[in-house]
């Protein structure tokens, strides 16, 4: 059997024959290019099967997907608080990633108590020397404030509309975990500049941990890297703030919203 392609599979000729617009040509060319390499057609078919079999429908509209009734419109702004938390989270993530280029999590450089450390100096450099740095830090901090506020108000909205009742108990508990992680996000970020209040906020954290019987010392070591504050504390807060929490919180938010998608929004009646 010849390996040469038969004419009916000559996609280029087919493209020419079709007399398409530029957009259509570009789209089809890309599709064909990708399909030759990755066989997307098969996956598209899988998706299609999913779509019909499992009755996973693309929403015709948000209101329809969540089965929102028209009599309900005046509550609607409160229902955007969850999304506003996500938006603020994204703003904080982008600005935080940019800040990360300049920040250094190090207490090096302080010869005497009260001397600036490398961490503090790097924030000072961001504020004073970097183009747009002052604004960047300001955006990052304000996005964090907005996120916490939105999450708190979102929780109040869920509470006062009774949206946590069966079958949404699990999502409420997931929400409680999310708000705690959000606060931890804020707290660990607060410590990073290693300014006076950062230090003393961390100090109070250590004292709280140490006042707890049984697990306290272990928790202090885990979170603060010891019983006295120093380089280890800063690095732990840093890893928590820029590595662990971003992954965990992003995954949990996806799960949280996924559950809302599956269960539908709780409409008061």
């Amino acid at each position, binding site marked *: 059997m010849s390996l040469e392609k038969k004419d009916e599979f000559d996609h280029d000729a087919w493209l020419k024959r079709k007399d398409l617009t530029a957009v259509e040509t570009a789209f089809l060319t890309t599709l064909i290019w990708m399909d030759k390499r990755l066989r997307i057609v098969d996956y598209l078919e899988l998706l299609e099967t999913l779509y019909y079999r499992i009755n996973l429908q693309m929403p015709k509209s948000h209101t329809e997907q969540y089965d929102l009734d028209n009599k309900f419109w005046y509550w609607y702004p409160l229902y955007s608080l969850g*999304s506003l938390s996500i938006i603020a989270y994204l703003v904080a993530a982008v600005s935080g990633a940019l800040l990360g280029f300049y920040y250094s999590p190090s207490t090096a450089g302080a010869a005497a108590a*009260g001397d600036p450390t490398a961490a503090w100096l790097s924030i000072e450099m961001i504020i004073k020397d970097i183009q747009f740095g002052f604004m960047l830090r300001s955006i990052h901090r304000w996005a964090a404030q907005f996120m*916490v506020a939105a999450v708190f108000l979102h929780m109040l909205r869920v509470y006062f509309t009774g949206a946590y009742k069966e079958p949404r108990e699990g999502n409420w508990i997931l929400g409680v975990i999310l708000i705690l992680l959000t606060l931890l996000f804020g707290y660990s970020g607060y410590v990073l500049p290693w300014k006076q209040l950062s230090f003393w906020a961390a100090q109070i954290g250590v004292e709280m941990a140490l006042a707890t019987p049984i697990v306290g010392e272990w928790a202090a070591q885990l979170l603060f890297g010891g019983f006295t504050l120093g380089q280890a504390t800063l690095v732990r807060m840093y890893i928590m703030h820029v590595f662990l929490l971003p992954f965990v919180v992003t995954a949990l938010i996806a799960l949280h919203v996924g559950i809302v998608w599956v269960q539908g929004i709780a409409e008061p009646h």
Partner: protein
Amino acid sequence: MTDQHTSTDPTGTDEQEPLTDGGTDGEARTDGGPPATIPPDDETPTWSERKERSQGLSRLTYEYFERARREDQDLRQESTYVERDVLGFPAWPHETIRNLAITSFFVGIIILVSATIPMYFENPANASSTPSIILPDWYLYWSFGLLKLNPINPGLAVLDGNLVFSHEFFGILGHGLIIGVIALVPFLNKGNARRPVEQPFWSAVGVMGALLSVTLAALAIQNFFPFELELLFTLVFILPFLGGVVTYAVLKTMREGYMYDLNKRYYRLRPPQ
């Protein structure tokens, strides 16, 4: 092998059919006799036969799924719900544009606020000088306030008036209590009520909680208040309680008139059978 093949050959002829690759069947069969693992068609159990034969947990799972499916079907058949063609605005363009507007508005506000109220940066950490006022960000004030509950930390007479918990641990227990109660809410408040008017008690509890988070925050920044700590401390608990009582009273009063309206509309939409 060839013998076996010809003996089952339905046509009963010895002549071997040419195959598409030009050879004959006899030559092509190189990997041993007919497959032994696939039972003949009439012995293959159907899906439900297989499920019915299953044992233990998978059997229970199957039985429950069957029940659930039947329940679903019954409910669907009994339902008088009429599927409407259009329930809301279309995703494109209405909702997409609305969402883009909300998003850009919100991001715009964040940027505007960041530009106009920049964050203030302080001196480097100094482990040897405790600042007179230690504060976290505002959203942790409530937590910080909980650490200042020393005056109500119980001392037990049995222990000669000694504290049961250290002051710090008492505050930490406060955190645990608050978080625990919040997490338990769905299991304490059950039922179908959704709107605040339908559940005055739980709305009052909610108002109390929200106010408590504010008064505890006030306790955390007590140094900024002109009045005495004693008074502030009393207010921390009295104010939320008062707020709760007022909420309860207002909602109870609203309830009659409101429920009447609500029910009128509800029954117009879904008339009682």
